[in-house]
């Protein structure tokens, strides 16, 4: 089993195969499932993701607290107006990432990638790229597998938990995973996938987990938006041949160490950051019907 990104890339070179193929072969070995079963599982998850995106951009989704919902739909309408500045593929990645996370906040059905709080980034980018690149269904399944391969490395060498490593471990990991998978889907090399992952994650380092009222809503929905956009930019940079000066594995290690030295108030305890702002606290009181004096 590959322990880090360097070993993963080495396996693709040794056998002349893609990252998603390494992931499939390893999955068969680790779980004893057949290739068909591995792909069928990813296909089921694609269906869940696509439905969450659809709900988020078509229906009027609102969370129980009322803090989030409807922004993915708003952005989708704006794209249709033709006035978008960042380009349709970029903006769709953002709208669909937000849509997914809004459905999540409404306790709707989603697929964690790698977590629920960061569940928008991977499907957001994928279902935007679907419009741009017209991939086959198997290519889309492989998108998830390549994302998963990089996610496994992060989970085993750092963390994918906001409570343990801050938002960099959740949306940061998701942005890196999506960037790497985007490169493969667009025909880039495994090495370029690793560069894209490194460049995306580098720009998420230090990001804290400070959810208002402890809810996976503010700022999570908009962090998924930013995560999707960073993933797209990092993928484009890697496809252009730009490399990260710091190797991917070292960026992951840096993320782990930053998470370790981060204050507990900034790791999903709702005690610091945006959660501790006057507005953040007022919203918390409002939602839980607490007296304003209680802190």
């Amino acid at each position, binding site marked *: 089993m590959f322990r880090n990104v360097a070993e993963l890339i080495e396996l693709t070179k040794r056998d002349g195969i893609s990252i998603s193929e390494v992931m499939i072969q390893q999955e068969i070995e680790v779980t004893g499932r057949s290739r068909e079963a591995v792909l069928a599982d990813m296909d089921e998850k694609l269906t869940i993701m696509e439905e969450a995106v659809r709900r988020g951009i078509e229906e009027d989704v609102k969370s129980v607290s009322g803090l989030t919902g409807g922004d993915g739909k708003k952005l989708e309408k704006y794209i249709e107006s033709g006035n978008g500045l960042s380009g349709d593929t970029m903006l769709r990645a953002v709208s669909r990432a937000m849509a997914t996370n809004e459905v999540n906040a409404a306790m709707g*059905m989603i697929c964690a990638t790698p977590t629920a709080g960061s569940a928008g980034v991977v499907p957001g980018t994928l279902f935007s790229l679907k419009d741009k690149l017209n991939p086959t269904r198997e290519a889309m399944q492989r998108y998830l597998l390549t994302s998963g391969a990089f996610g*496994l490395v992060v989970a085993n060498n750092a963390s994918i938990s906001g409570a343990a490593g801050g938002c960099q471990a959740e949306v940061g990991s998701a942005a890196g995973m999506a960037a790497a998978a985007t490169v493969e889907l667009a025909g880039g090399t495994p090495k370029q996938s690793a560069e894209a992952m490194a460049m995306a994650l580098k720009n998420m380092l230090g990001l804290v987990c400070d959810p208002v009222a402890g809810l996976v809503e503010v700022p999570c929905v908009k962090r998924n938006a930013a995560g999707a956009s960073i993933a797209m930019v990092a993928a484009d940079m890697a496809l252009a041949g730009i490399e990260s000066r710091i190797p991917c594995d070292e960026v992951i290690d840096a993320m782990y160490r930053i998470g370790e030295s981060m204050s507990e108030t900034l790791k999903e305890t709702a005690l610091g950051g945006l959660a501790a702002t006057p507005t953040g606290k007022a919203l918390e009181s409002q939602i839980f019907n607490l007296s304003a004096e209680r802190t």
Partner: protein
Amino acid sequence: MKYRSVTEIIGPIMVGPSSSHTAGAARIGRLARLLFDGQPKRVNIHLYGSFAKTYKGHGTDVALIGGLLDFDTFDERIRDAKEHADKANMRVRFHEEEAIPDHPNTVKLRLESDDNAMELVGISIGGGKIEIIELNGFALQLTGHHPALLIVHQDRYGVIANVANVLALHKVNIGHMKVSRKEKGREALMVIEVDQTVTDEIMTSLEKLEHVDQVAKLHE
């Protein structure tokens, strides 16, 4: 390595909003029910760390209750788990603890029925993955790097041999094994880490063994 399968990163399919605080909590509740071998009448749930601070917003409470009612992570009944618990005559009380745990997402559950009680400490380590770190006062010390079996049994001769035989028959290799008991001849616990996947067929064979009370698997 703690995470071995791509399904632990791409997945689980779940109702939101948090993989660690909702899906992981549901899994801990469900595993507790499985180990308890049925639905408890009363459950006291002690929340620590981030669980204690943010459980309301994350639906950790309804997820734990949902798990105790045998709901899976994607079961939309989780949202109304409290009502379902009332209907099922399961009384659940939550306690917010101040003590700082080793892991930020820690929960202790005490399950009771008229003739049975069990205490379990679980942690949710990210992406929906969970670990059980204590069962009935037995520290489990699982590495989480391999599939593991928990077998609650009676402290009698031959039980260990019988369990090992079932595994050998199915070509499952034991990497690490620990047997603990509180008192000679009473309840004991086997914690076995294996190299291969434990199939449902193996689970059924183990459950049928004499003096074996409960069997559960962790870390597929």
